[in-house]
């Protein structure tokens, strides 16, 4: 069975739609804020993928003569301390931000799904143990947990992804577990079991697909906070190391001083982070309205 039936959703709304494109257009009209968010996300994804083509300069090319140059025709967003083009650095920064954001959301999501499914399916001591571990993990704020993890793993791109993904696991595991618990009692699962399907196949073929909708909603919300957390970690000097251009680190390099002498170094990376997270959150809100009927008002 299909877990998310867009078709039915559109029919219910009384939409007369043919094919994918007009369906998307209809949804965009119905959820204008979500469409704006989706558009913002698409722009950032394209910037990240085609960074080499789109960026006007080499983001690592230093030029002592242009140190702290204000925005002008050749460098729209100005230059940093080392004379590197801010615009190119921000475009390349989208790669790091999205790589860490998407990477840690996916990693945390996968671990959470496995733990949640097993917990809701096996119950018993395994469930008890994982529930207590999740309690422990939720006793710390996301940023504190990520800070300690990042510090103990050491600075690198992979470690930053790992440090952010682990604190995301509990929420996913909780959602999947509670869904599994209610689904395993459903008649169609019972039917599958009566039909001789193994528990493992039931979990993967029936339970998991029906958990996809809340998972997508949760993942978009987590993507936003993962991007923010990466920026915060890098800002505090515990995130992605040089030479990767990370938005958070661009802001941290003696930021208080730049506030006085080179405000463009503070404004543009901040706009990039805010816009990326804002787009994700707008999209997440709309997805929740579309996919989660309980939240619908």
């Amino acid at each position: 069975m299909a877990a998310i039936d867009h078709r039915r959703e559109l029919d219910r709304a009384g939409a007369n739609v043919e094919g994918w494109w007009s369906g998307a257009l209809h949804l965009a009209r119905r959820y204008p804020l979500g469409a704006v968010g989706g558009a913002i996300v698409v722009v950032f994804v394209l910037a990240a993928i085609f960074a080499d083509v789109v960026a006007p300069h080499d983001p690592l090319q230093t030029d002592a003569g242009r140190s702290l140059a204000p925005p002008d025709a050749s460098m729209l967003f100005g230059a940093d301390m080392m004379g590197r083009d801010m615009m190119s650095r921000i475009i390349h920064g989208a790669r790091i931000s999205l790589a860490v954001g998407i990477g840690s959301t996916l990693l945390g999501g996968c671990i959470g799904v496995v733990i949640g499914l097993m917990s809701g399916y096996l119950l018993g001591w395994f469930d008890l143990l994982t529930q207590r571990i999740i309690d422990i993990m939720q006793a710390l704020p996301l940023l504190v947990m990520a800070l300690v993890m990042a510090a103990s793993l050491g600075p690198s791109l992979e470690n930053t992804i790992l440090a952010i993904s682990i604190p995301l696991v509990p929420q996913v595991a909780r959602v999947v577990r509670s869904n599994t618990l209610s689904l395993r009692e459903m008649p169609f699962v019972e039917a599958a079991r009566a039909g001789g399907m193994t528990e493992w196949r039931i979990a993967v073929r029936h339970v998991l697909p029906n958990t996809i909708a809340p998972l997508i909603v949760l993942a978009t919300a987590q993507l936003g906070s993962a991007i923010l957390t990466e920026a915060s970690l890098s800002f505090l000097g515990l995130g992605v190391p040089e030479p990767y251009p990370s938005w958070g680190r661009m802001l941290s390099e003696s930021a208080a001083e730049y506030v006085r002498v080179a405000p463009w170094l503070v404004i543009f990376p901040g706009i990039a982070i805010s816009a990326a997270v804002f787009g994700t959150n707008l999209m997440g809100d709309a997805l929740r309205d579309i996919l989660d009927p309980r939240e619908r008002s």
Partner: protein
Amino acid sequence: MSTYLIRRFLLMILTLVGMSIVIFVLLRLVPGNIADIMFDSAGFVDPAEKAIIEAELGLDQPIPVQYYDWIAGLLVGDLGFSYVSEMPAIDEIGPRIPITAKLAALSLFFSVLFGLPLGVISAVRQNTALDYVLRVVSLSGLSLPSFWLALLILMACVAWFGAIPIYTDTPESLWDELALYLLPSAAVGFRASALIMRLTRSSMLEVLRQDYIRTAKAKGAPDNSVNYVHALKNAVLPVTTIIGIEAAFLIGGLIITETVFNIPGVAHFLVEAILMRDYPIVQNLVMFIAIIVVVINFITDLAYAALDPRIKYAD
């Protein structure tokens, strides 16, 4: 109820014990301890001397022994010594707590002051232009990185007053102190109020759909009285339960904001200690944060049951 209380309390203790183990092990995963760092910066030094320092700091002991020493000390209020300042950790942490507590209280005040009424208005005027504006504002509140918001505030101060209002000296009067904390707590509170606003809105919408609201309207009760008397009372209840989440959220915001504004509170100190690998400080501070979050969650759970007579915890 009393069985529930006891069970809930024991779970809380279990969580904290688990937390202490997690923190302790995590911090020992770090490649290189403080002795390594001290010696790296000093260049080549006699390995025998390094061993002496490690023995002095107790780093040569097996990890379970180090853990036991920490917990045994924790229970009698002995938090060990800071590696960096070599002062007792409690003397380092203690004086910083009131600073962060005041900042947190002021931030919480701001977040409730703005979040609650705006959330209610947004729900009552659902799907109007005002609702859309408020929703976009609250969503942007959650999207702005707190350090950027703090930097923008600093920038505005430079533009208007020509000065950066960061912490330099200990404030002398209460007014000085308030003025100093106003901007940082507004920065933290703005983000936190966005969270409260969104939750108030959805909780209020939920209540407004219920039958008793329709009954009240059918009886001819004025809109204002239905919205602000009948509905609000029930809508606020679930919002109180998120104070636990809110506390965790505030701590995250404080870490960043204290760093940007150079406020010598515990949150800023945690970052400094992590960067310096000052284990005794880090493990005690993280434990302190965990205790606060867990205890607040425990209290809100109980408060919820006390406030809402519909909720009965089964034994």
